[in-house]
């Protein structure tokens, strides 16, 4: 599996994502500069965290206009896995690939800590290696992670099992319905505020995030195998 990690000016979790895939997963991975226009040849697309373009306007609001974004949207339409973490999630929201918006954390302060996440849906290609309702330890680090959507959207997310992760126990940022991560209707675009790439090495406290990447890899192997045999 060949993975692209998109690098915007101000991305700062790009290297963490790169190493989670290279060292944690042991798969091929490249940085792809925001000004590139094609993602052909990549099997999975990662939009890492950070402060793209400084996020002085609104998180992700500028990045969605970057040269690479049409290629990200195309990859999403082609059914390739697209994972947006933290700022990457915010960019996916701004780009319209996922519904809703981010508000400032309820206490108006940046929060960095490892939280308990509940796996609400383990049937996505990102979560097959987790148990349903399993509680995993994954770090968060954000100032604007208070997910908001209107009632109709929430209903739609709930009814279609599109809420993949929720905060278990204390909700750290005030997000609606404790939402920490959601997926698109096709099931190949996941946005999440917590950082699975920061939980890919037990030395740093948790490797619960590694299974997310392994799930993507398994799904890719199965689907390419299916493609060869069909």
């Amino acid at each position, binding site marked *: 599996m060949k993975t692209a990690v998109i690098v915007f000016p101000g991305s700062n*979790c790009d*290297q963490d994502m790169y190493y989670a895939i290279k060292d944690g997963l042991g798969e091929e991975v490249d940085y792809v500069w925001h000004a590139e226009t094609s993602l052909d040849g990549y099997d999975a697309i990662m939009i890492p965290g*950070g402060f793209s373009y400084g996020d002085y306007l609104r998180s992700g609001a500028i990045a969605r206009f970057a040269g690479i974004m049409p290629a990200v949207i195309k990859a999403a339409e082609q059914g390739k896995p697209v994972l947006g973490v933290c700022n990457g999630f915010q960019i996916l929201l701004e780009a319209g690939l996922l519904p809703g918006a981010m508000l400032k954390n309820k206490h108006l302060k940046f929060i*960095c800590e490892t939280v308990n996440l509940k796996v609400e849906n383990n049937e996505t290609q990102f979560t097959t290696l987790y148990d349903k309702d399993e509680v995993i330890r994954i770090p968060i680090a954000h100032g604007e992670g208070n997910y908001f959507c209107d009632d109709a959207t929430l209903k739609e997310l709930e009814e279609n099992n599109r809420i993949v992760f929720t905060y278990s126990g204390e909700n750290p940022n005030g997000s609606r319905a404790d939402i920490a991560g959601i997926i698109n209707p096709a099931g190949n675009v996941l946005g999440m505020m917590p950082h699975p790439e920061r939980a890919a090495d037990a*030395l*740093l406290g948790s490797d619960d995030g590694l299974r997310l990447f392994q799930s993507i890899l398994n799904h890719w192997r199965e689907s390419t195998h299916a493609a060869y045999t069909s």
Partner: protein
Amino acid sequence: MPLTHLEPSPEQIEQDKVYRTMGLTEEEYQKVKELLGRKPNYTETGLFSVMWSEHCSYKTSKPVLKYFPTSGEHVLQGPGEGAGIVDIGDGQAVVFKIESHNHPSAIEPYQGAATGVGGIIRDVFSMGARPVALLDSLRFGDLDNSRVRYLFEEVVSGIAGYGNCIGIPTVGGELQFDNCYNGNPLVNAMCVGIMNHEDIQVGQARGIGNTVMYVGASTGRDGINGATFASEEISEKSDEKRSAVQVGDPFMEKLLVEACLELTKHEALVGIQDMGAAGLVSSASEMAAKAGVGIHMNLDLIPQRETEMTPYEMMLSESQERMLIVIKKGSEEEIKAIFARWGLHAVAVGEVIEEEVLRLEHKGTIVADVPSDSLASAPVRHMPSKVPASYLANQAAPNWLPEINNYEKTIKKLLGQPTLASKEWVTRQYDYMVQTNTVVAPGSDAAVVRVRGTKKGLAMTTDCNAKYLALDPNEGGKIAVAEAARNIVCSGGLPLAITDCLNFGSPENPEVFWQIDESVKGMAKACEELKTPVISGNVSLYNETDRGAIDPTPVVGMVGLVEDLDHVMTAPFKNEGDLVYVIGKANPEFGGSALQILIDGEVSGKAPVLDLELEKSRQAKVLEAIKLGYLASAHDVSEGGLAIAVAESVFGTEFGCDLQFDSDPAVELFSETQSRYLVTVPEASKSAFESLIDDAVLVGKVTRSETLNIDFASSTVTLNRPELENEWRGALSCIMSAKN
């Protein structure tokens, strides 16, 4: 039209003593005249006034700084460049420095703190290193004061705002509260970087004919005269100097880091330096002076974000996120391309010339023409020193002994003191995990950051107990270094070197100068003994308000090498049944202790005594025990004494302990005798550990319990972990949420 025609003439400057308002003394002005052989014009007077300020020149502290040992086996770069460099083996090196941003933070706390972080990061990457960690040593006044709470909250936000955005983890530091910092907080930021030996850069303008380029953000009018402002006491008038505080843009700096690290791999790069304090003038004159050359610069080419800027304004601006580089002539276009990729300016603004002068051209005329080394050679001031009467009185005072009726209550109260309480309210606002190398997060004795691709780690800490220094600057100076080293050792690291941030009051007060002199002597002695040379640092004087000077606060930033990440050690107890040992006997030493402050509200008597030889041998033994795998936990006994060390070791765990002592409870629990450790040892390692550290005293066991039982011959102290932990964990957030 720039308003240069409104500037006073050289004659007027002399006649009206304009130089005085710019910060130059009478003698200094005469010296400038002598160096130039003529009267300086307005721009030149400005150049000298900032470059000869204490902040840039260290003119007062220079004679004292000579005490420090600055070289050692592993030191690749000592003081004098952007940051110091120490070898860590395998062709790699660690780069680090600490710097103050006290004065700006007292006036505009968010930007003051943010730009302090930005400045120290530039110092580190200008050496060619990738910044991998930040630490912040903070001091504030009494949190009952609403202005203090405002300063505290905004400083923390400023540090978070900059560090989080740029993506360098803030992994440690310290935070203390005391009345003496009421109007004058201390904001000291430290940055640590990692690099390969072959990438080491210097801030030198070598090679006649080479091109001087300006890279990064444009120049505005922000921060003009900041260095001079930092060399004065803070007063009511300081608010008028808000424009001397710069504004930070961490996004710009993130781009600058990446572009400059690309640049340092390019063979055309000759020298690189941050435009920090005193901006263009300091970077240009220092790069020229260090290389024994001159620089001719055309100010019309300087990227400007405001119109009609005068040469004075351009040269003295402290706009952030700018660097000056010298490159081989002819490679301008390649260098521009590197910066253009990151959306940054790279503009050729001058050239290296043989004549050793800094020559500035503006609109076709030469507006300044001064010998390059003259700006870097402020006349050294030898200040008078006087032993304070308070010191003599404290030395002569009878030994202070506490009377304690309720040990449980006392311990709980201590844990709720802002200085001793959990710092989570602060650290959770910092992204301490980005870069995914943080092995030991904030809250332990020292933070540990992995060196990616190796088995190694870097342990890092900042330390200074100013209360000891207030009583005895020499002994307290020694302790600051020793405590930092103890924290490194307790984390499994071998102390390598230090950087220091010398925060004091006005050196013009002979009693303050005595404090400076004695503190540095004490620190230097400890650095010699512990083999931790000083590789970089910063001096911040004039930390006083109309209420007086701060306590002497020379902050020590130390980095140690963890040879193998398997050696990483932390304070919390790990297993039920582990044996608890105390290394080092407690003496009735309470001068400057947390207990004394709790009871008396002030400190008195003698500071604890430090035996450097004992300190050194114990550190070596504890580190040995860690490396041999004998220990399950290690924690140094510092502020608050053993009671606090024990409490901190059970917080966040499911453990309690049963301990027995035959000593005096007050002394055992609260004395701040130095060179002591609390360690736990699994039963299996008992005899090996005891033969290695024969003076360790077995005092009890770790239990799986909410209770801490501490038995003395005369009484038993019984504590409930959740109750203590609530007090400790909630204290700061409770104060900050209740009073806002």
